[in-house]
Structure formats: structure tokens, C-alpha cells
């Protein structure tokens, strides 16, 4: 019987098992990390979806209640605060939103895993320079002038995962697009003049005789 047909020695078996353990261990680590990363990505994607939903809700709220948003901006309050919108009443055709100060939570579940997101948004004023360029950076007039018809809102979403706190934010500028126009082509008895300015006899033009 030659030495090559005698079978493996104990030493060879131990080495083989060791190599296999190392390979299996590495693979398992990679798989665990991959699963965790996938889980984190899923949480982040859901977080971004929540943030986008907040911005959409703000845009909708601004259509009906722009004055509330503007009057809670830093230029009016004197400070930047956290806010959230909450459904107050709902019917089949409409939903009324309530404007609140502070933060609230949103819970989402997937595969029996519930993630709780803490959400809020902030409001920043928009300032414009002579060339009408928008900025959130304040400078004393006349360098910039506040534009009350434009605001920047930022949605924040914050959650815990694997003992760590994650936070994302999304910003958008919203403008008050609903405008009214009034044209004066006649100046009648309700208009008053002073200091040499006159209105033509038909009331159609203003001039200095």
C-alpha cells in the first residue's frame, strides 16, 4: 500500500476544517453587513419618502394658509422654530390641516418591523438683492429686501437604527402664486389730488397742467 492511498491524516483534516471555517465566517460577515446595509437603505428611503410627503403637505397647506406660514417665519417670530402639520378634520372630499409647534412621530412597518420617525419642518425667509437673486442669508437693507411671497421650508426626519440616530433633511422654496390684479383707468370722485396734479375731465388721465 503506497503512502498516497493511505487517506488524510488528522492534521490535514484540521487544516481543511479551519480553512472552511474562515471562508464560511467571512461569507457570513459579508452577508450580515449586506443585510444591515440593505435595512439601512430601506429605512433611509422610507425617511426620504416621509420628508417628501411633509414638503408636499406644506405646499398644499400654503395654498390655503400662506399667511400662517409667513407669520411663523423667523422674520416675524424673531427666531427659527420647529413645526409640524397634523390632520385636524377630514371629509370625503377635503382634509383640514392644523399648524403646530414642535415635532411629531410617524410609524411605518414592513415585515413586522416598525420604524418610528420623528418629523418636523422649519421655515426660512427669502431675501432678494437688486438683481432679484434669492438668498436665505440676511443682510441689512438696502443690500437685500425680504420677499414675503417666497419661503424656504426644510423637512427633517430622524430615526434610530442599530443604536444610532440617523437624520435626513429636504428643502424646497415655495412661492405665493395666487395673485390679484386691479387696473385703474378712471379716477373719479373718490380720488383726491394735491399740489397741482389734475385729472382730465373724463377722469382718464393724471397730469400736471
Amino acid at each position, binding site marked *: 500500500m503506497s503512502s498516497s492511498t493511505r487517506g488524510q491524516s488528522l492534521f490535514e483534516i484540521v487544516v481543511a476544517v479551519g480553512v472552511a471555517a474562515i471562508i464560511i465566517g467571512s461569507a457570513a460577515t459579508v452577508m450580515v453587513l449586506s443585510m444591515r446595509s440593505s435595512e439601512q437603505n430601506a429605512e433611509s428611503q422610507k425617511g426620504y419618502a416621509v420628508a417628501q410627503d411633509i414638503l408636499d403637505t406644506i405646499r398644499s397647506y400654503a395654498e390655503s394658509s400662506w399667511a400662517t406660514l409667513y407669520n411663523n417665519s423667523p422674520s416675524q417670530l424673531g427666531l427659527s422654530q420647529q413645526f409640524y402639520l397634523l390632520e385636524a378634520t377630514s371629509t370625503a372630499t377635503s382634509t383640514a390641516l392644523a399648524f403646530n409647534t414642535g415635532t411629531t412621530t410617524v410609524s411605518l412597518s414592513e415585515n413586522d418591523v416598525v420604524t418610528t420617525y420623528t418629523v418636523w419642518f422649519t421655515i426660512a425667509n427669502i431675501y432678494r438683492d437688486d438683481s432679484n437673486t434669492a438668498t436665505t442669508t440676511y443682510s441689512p437693507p438696502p443690500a437685500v429686501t425680504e420677499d414675503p411671497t417666497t419661503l424656504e421650508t426644510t423637512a427633517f426626519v430622524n430615526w434610530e437604527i442599530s443604536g444610532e440616530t440617523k437624520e435626513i433633511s429636504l428643502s424646497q422654496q415655495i412661492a405665493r402664486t395666487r395673485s390679484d390684479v386691479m387696473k385703474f383707468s378712471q379716477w373719479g370722485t373718490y380720488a*383726491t389730488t394735491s399740489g397741482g396734479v389734475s385729472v382730465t375731465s373724463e377722469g382718464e388721465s393724471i*397730469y400736471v397742467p
Partner: protein
Amino acid sequence: MKRYQESSGLRCGLVVLGACFLSVIVTLSVWSGLPVRSVGAAEESNIDSTNKWAWNDVVGWIDFYHSGDGAFVTDEKLEQAAVLDTDPSNHILLDCATTPTGNICATSKFSVSNYDNGGYLAGYAWNDDYGWISFCGNATEGSSQVGDHWECPASPTYQVYIDLAGANPSGDFSGYAWNDTIGWISFSDNDPVPYRVQVDCTGDICTQEGLPGYLQSATIDTGAVNGFAVNSITWKGTLPTYTHVGFTVAVTSSSTPSESDFKGENGGTTLYETSVGAAGVYRIDIDAAYHNPYKSGYRYLTYRVYIDNAYQETGPVVEDVILNWSS
């Protein structure tokens, strides 16, 4: 006799005392810097030290500030002199009474009038190399002297103007002067580079009192119970050169605005004004932040339109006013 001697001595004493008093006054005035103007001593120029250049294609840049001893604009005329940048000893004399060498009016009487501080210059300046420089005229005639000032001919085709009055006077010179040898002298342009001559409006030479009156509109109830923001005023009409149309706006919680409710630029009294428009339509952006934006109850809007004909034969005419706001 004794009485006469006593009286004579008293008179002598009074004369000496008077002379002493006069010498003290003169000494004090000199020491305290009172305006005792000596021959050839220049008034500090009130031309801006940066925007001081006029241009001529032959002689090049003309400096109206020149280290502080250049031109001086008063509410009656231009005084002192400008200098050629290529030869600072070569002066353009603006007023015979205030040349760098003193009063030469006995030899040659000339000046450039700023009659009634309207900013419309007329008359002549002098340069030893090139002769008379006319600040207003047409193809056939120049300025003519009327009383103590110069006036343009009836239909001038060129004139130098300073924006001294109106809603927002800039102090900028504009237009052309003419010399038979060197041709046009331009006071503001962008060729070969942006330049202009500008009087310093922080002094009292510029006035904002040139607006003779206004029309106050009826008060509009916008119906915006939570307030609104004024975006713009657009007006249609005619705006002849040099004339002004300006606006103020009142956003109030009462349908009867008070005088202090009407505000212009930056919430102050300076009118919203534009001098740029196409086809007689002029749009003015309003700084809504200064007009109670989105303030509960502030639903009423009133405007005033100011018209200044700036001494022109034909003044502005406003035909339409269009208000735009966001509620």
C-alpha cells in the same frame, strides 16, 4: 473849548476802539476758518472723487474733481474749473469769477448757469487752447444771457443736465457740451468704458422737493382678511425726458389711511420710481416687506401717484395704473 477837546478825545478813543474791534473780528474769522476767500483759493469740489470724468475724442479724459480743487456746483452755476487729464495745468474754466487765478470777469465775463437749481445747464466755459465750450444750444445758436444767468435757445438739440431734483436725485451729469475745435464733450457714457460726472448728493445741492403734487387713489378693499403682500405697480402713459412719476403705497387695517401710512422705498419717503420702460409701460417692484405683509386685518390698499414735470413744457401723463398683490 474844553468841552470840544474832551469830545474830540472821546471820538479818538472810539475810533481806536473800533479799529481794535475790527482787527479782532478779522483775526478771529481767519483763525476760526470762517469763509474768507482769498484770490485763487479753491472751494473743496463737491464732485464725486470717483465719478468725475467727462470724455472728448480729441483731448481724452476731463477731470471735474482734480484732487479736490475741481468744479463746484452751486444752486446758480458751476464754479471753478475742470482739468485735462493729459495736462493738469490746462484748465476748462467754468466761471470767470472763480478761476484758479482769481476773478477775471473784468477781462472776460462767462459762466455756466444752473438756473434755479433745476440741473439744466446753459452758458459757456472757456479753455485757452480750444476756446468757448457751449453747454446748451442747437445748430444755429447757443445760450443767451438773461439777467444774471444764461438760458438755452427755445429748441436745444444738446444740453448738459444734472439730476438734482425729482424723486431720487442721483447727482449724475448727462448730455453733451460742444466746442468748435474739439467737438462733443460727453458727461456720461459706457464707451470707451463706463464713466460719468456726478455731484455729491450728500451735500445740500440735491433736493427731493421737485415733486409738486400727487393723486391719491380710492381705497381698495382686497378682501384679504389675513393680509396680503403688494408685488408691483405697473403704469402706462408718457414720461418725457427729465420728468418723474413716482408712487407711495399704504396697506392699512382702516379704509381711511393716514399720512404716515404712505411709504416708499425701504419703508421711507423716497418714492418708488422708474425711468426705464418700453412702449410707455413702466413696472415698479414694491418691497412688500415694508407694507404690513400678511398682517391680520390689513386688507386695505391705497396708492399715491406723484407727477413732476421738472420745469419741462410737456410733463408726464398717467393713463392706467395696475396694482398686483398676493393674498
